[in-house]
């Protein structure tokens, strides 16, 4: 294949924005977007709430400064303050830009973009389009990329970077529709593959494909990952699918009830009850389950979110989507039955370590969005900042790559590299020594992560988790791809995704073990407080000799001094 100036891996919000911005910066560039799905299917579409930007449409006194402070505080002071400044000061501009290109937004009476209040924000700053903001942003970006004639390679699964010493020559990927392994020689590569929270499998609200492919590829190429231990949990995921029952259900007066019939939140937040902060409610549910007051089912232990006392009329008029979701995905009508819930992993703060331009330590390789870690979310992401992150840093990475693309001519990707890769993935199809089923391994990975590296973490449990992950990796070497065909082999794709998750799970567990404090989403029962003296710093993990090697990076500070995080 012809040399590309930029190959973008991933077609969600970050990848598409990068592609669009790069084409805008230099229309002569040869740009490709590789995506393992059709880009309009990306997980960006699942973000319902909206994107924060201090447009000051709803609250005239809102400022970028306030947005910066809210974000830093929300991050439990682990975010880099210069990066947060970029995020928040670019926010109004990028939301307006999205508007200008045709994104639908809900509107205020004065015809400007509507904004609503969101958790952890001092002003109503979250720009939204009904309850489908991520979906409409993704559709618009995809449409605009089609308008600009971006070259899409849909249903291509990225396998690995092709390296020339310490420099990338491009990417090797499998065409899922044909099974053919192909080389994409490229001057620059941008990873925008989304998060890795699906490693918690059915204890995750994420799409099946949020398996951290970009992070795993970068990691295998020696690029460091950062802050991997920070995974955000949402208190009320559906028991079977992990899908979120949004806070609205509790906002309207839903009860959380344990197997003894108690409204257990009275133990943890007697004033606010079910409406306590998200992390506190998550921890409360987890405690109930751990102390044996949960319900049992083949899909695991769970609790009840009971809406029945609200009555059919209120449920139908105010919570129609939640009701529909429970009926569709759980087969439960909340008018007649309580909803089975448990905490669910839904966002990964960590990712590929980048600077404020999306650059990694490897020249020519970039990362953006949930895939990267700048870091703007630190130890805990604020609602409404995830969409913003992918937009702002997708665009920045696209521009940076476009500017750099001219400066380097990589040597070609050799045929034997491609052939070796082909051999490597096909080896799973051999029957000799291969007998493990990927579904079992995947389920067990989610289970051990949920139990041992979940909401509550503690030294001995994390050790157990690390051992179990190692054992799963060993078993993975015997995994069998039963489908031996070339065309659309999802058996193979899912095995490769599992490999990526296993690689990353190691770094999550390693980070959880080493960080001996509680900060943001990371809660250590054996170190229950934040420890700024020893742990006000980022962790990094670099693959050396098959093991993650730990490193540290200072947090960029600025105007805001460390404070206790209270609301």
């Amino acid at each position, binding site marked *: 294949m012809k040399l590309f100036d930029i190959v973008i891996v991933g077609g969600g919000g970050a990848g598409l924005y990068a592609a669009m911005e790069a084409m805008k910066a230099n229309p002569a560039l040869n740009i490709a977007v590789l995506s393992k799905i059709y880009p309009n*299917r990306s997980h960006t*579409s699942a973000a319902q709430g909206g994107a924060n930007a201090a447009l000051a449409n709803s609250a005239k006194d809102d400022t970028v400064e306030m947005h910066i402070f809210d974000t830093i505080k929300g991050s439990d002071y682990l975010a880099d303050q210069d990066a947060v400044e970029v995020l928040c000061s670019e926010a109004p501009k990028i939301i307006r830009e999205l508007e200008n*290109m045709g994104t639908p937004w809900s509107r205020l009476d004065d015809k400007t973009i509507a904004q609503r209040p969101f958790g952890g924000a001092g002003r109503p700053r979250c720009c939204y389009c009904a309850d489908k903001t991520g979906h409409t942003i993704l559709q618009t970006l995809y449409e605009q990329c089609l308008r600009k004639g971006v070259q899409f390679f849909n249903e291509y699964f990225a396998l690995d970077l092709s390296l020339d010493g310490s420099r990338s020559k491009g990417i090797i990927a499998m065409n899922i529709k044909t099974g053919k392994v192909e080389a994409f020689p490229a001057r620059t590569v941008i990873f925008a593959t989304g998060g890795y929270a699906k490693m918690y499998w059915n204890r995750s609200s994420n799409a099946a494909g949020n398996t951290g492919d970009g992070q795993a590829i970068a990691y295998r190429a020696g690029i460091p990952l950062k802050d991997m231990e920070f995974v955000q949990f949402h208190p009320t995921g559906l028991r079977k699918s992990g899908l979120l029952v949004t806070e609205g259900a509790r906002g309207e007066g839903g009860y959380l009830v344990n197997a003894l019939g108690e409204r257990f939140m009275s133990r943890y937040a007697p004033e606010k009850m079910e409406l306590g902060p998200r992390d506190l409610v998550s921890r409360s549910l987890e405690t109930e389950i751990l102390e044996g007051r949960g319900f049992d089912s083949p899909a695991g232990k769970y609790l009840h979110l009971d809406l029945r006392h609200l009555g059919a009329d209120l449920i139908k008029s105010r919570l129609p989507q939640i009701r529909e979701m429970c009926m569709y995905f759980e087969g439960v009508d909340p008018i007649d039955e309580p909803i089975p819930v448990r905490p669910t992993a839904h966002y990964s703060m960590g990712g590929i370590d980048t600077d404020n331009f999306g650059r990694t330590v490897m020249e020519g390789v970039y990362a953006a969005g949930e895939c990267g870690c700048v870091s703007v979310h630190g130890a805990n992401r604020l609602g409404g900042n995830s969409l913003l992150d992918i937009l702002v840093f997708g665009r920045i990475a696209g521009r940076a790559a476009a500017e750099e693309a001219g400066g380097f001519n990589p040597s070609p990707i050799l045929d034997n590299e491609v052939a070796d890769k082909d051999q490597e993935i096909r080896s799973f199809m051999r029957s000799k020594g291969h007998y493990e089923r990927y579904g079992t391994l995947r389920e067990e990975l989610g289970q051990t992560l949920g139990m041992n590296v979940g909401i509550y973490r503690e030294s001995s449990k994390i050790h157990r988790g690390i051992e179990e992950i190692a054992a799963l990796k060993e078993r993975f070497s015997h995994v069998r791809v039963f489908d031996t*065909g070339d065309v659309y*082999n999802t058996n193979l794709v899912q095995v490769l995704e599992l490999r990526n998750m296993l690689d990353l799970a190691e770094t999550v567990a390693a980070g959880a073990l080493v960080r001996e404090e509680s900060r943001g989403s990371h809660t250590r029962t054996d170190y229950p407080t934040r420890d700024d003296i020893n742990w006000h710093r980022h962790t990094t993990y670099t693959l050396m000799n098959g093991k993650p090697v730990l490193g540290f990076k200072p947090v960029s500070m600025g105007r805001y001094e460390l404070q206790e995080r209270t609301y």
Partner: protein
Amino acid sequence: MTDSSKQHIEEKRDVTFRVHRFNPQVDSKPYFDDYTIKLEKGITVLRALNYIKEHVDASLTFRAFCQAGICGSCAMRINNMSKLACTTQVWDELERTREPNVIRVEPLRNLPLIKDLVVEMDPLVGKMQQFSNWVDSKMPEEQWGRKEFLVSEEEFRKYDKATDCILCASCVSECTILRANRDYVSPAVLLKSYRMNVDSRDASHEQRLAGLVGDHGVWDCTHCYRCQETCVKHIPIMDAIHGIREDAIERRGVKDTSGARHAEAFMTDIGKKGKLVEATLPIRTNGVAWTLKNLLPMAFKMVIKRRTPPPPLLVKSTSGIEQFRAEFREMSGHVAKDHEKKSGE
């Protein structure tokens, strides 16, 4: 409160999934495999398929991604109806099976088959490109990001529902005309085109409309409403198709295409006689040459069976026609006034 502490005890049943299989590398034609598994209530068809793939037959191939009804990947035909596997409860499907406890699962129609339940989506993307399914902003790119277009909530509502579309292609699969001709624009693309056309920020309205009234375009829709009834997001797709047709007549005139001429004939006939003059409808829609070529061969039989519609002079006006005509004309006055008001704004 008391019974919320009760455990879920779920009924289990043996369910057979009769799944369409086809691997182009080995199969000369598609066939069906039966998978019988024990399932509890509350399981979706997608979870059942996942279970089969993980535990019974890893080669079973289908698309799935978000598993939450928003990405549109897992549209397939379940018991003969196109829908998302992830939002479909097995228990609900068991109530509508032709054979007890057997759920048929097949790929979408009207798109090329790749394998098992996976079809090629590129033709749909190609049509989105062909019909400029994007907002072509009135604002030059260099100026983006400085200030918002002002859009009322009322205008937003014009395209709000249309932007719910997740391109799952269920409507494509159920479309009558696509089944007859795959070049047809497709319901989803008409919906998206409409959404762009009613957006005041868009500058390509006229061009897009010109494409839409062309061959295999908006006038080929046969009004069967299957798209709308199938839509997993309950979008009134036919309203969008109607909207494009109305818009086409308003902006391009009633003489523009055979579809528009056909529509105009109704207006004319009703205004004159209150009744449709069917005998000359083909000529007025498509001209004399077309009519002779296409309908003359059938005319003979029709005459013999006395099935020919009466010639225009013999079409009896509806009774009370004078008064009706007066009302009809007066309404034309109202409409003209509406137009004046609209263009004055």
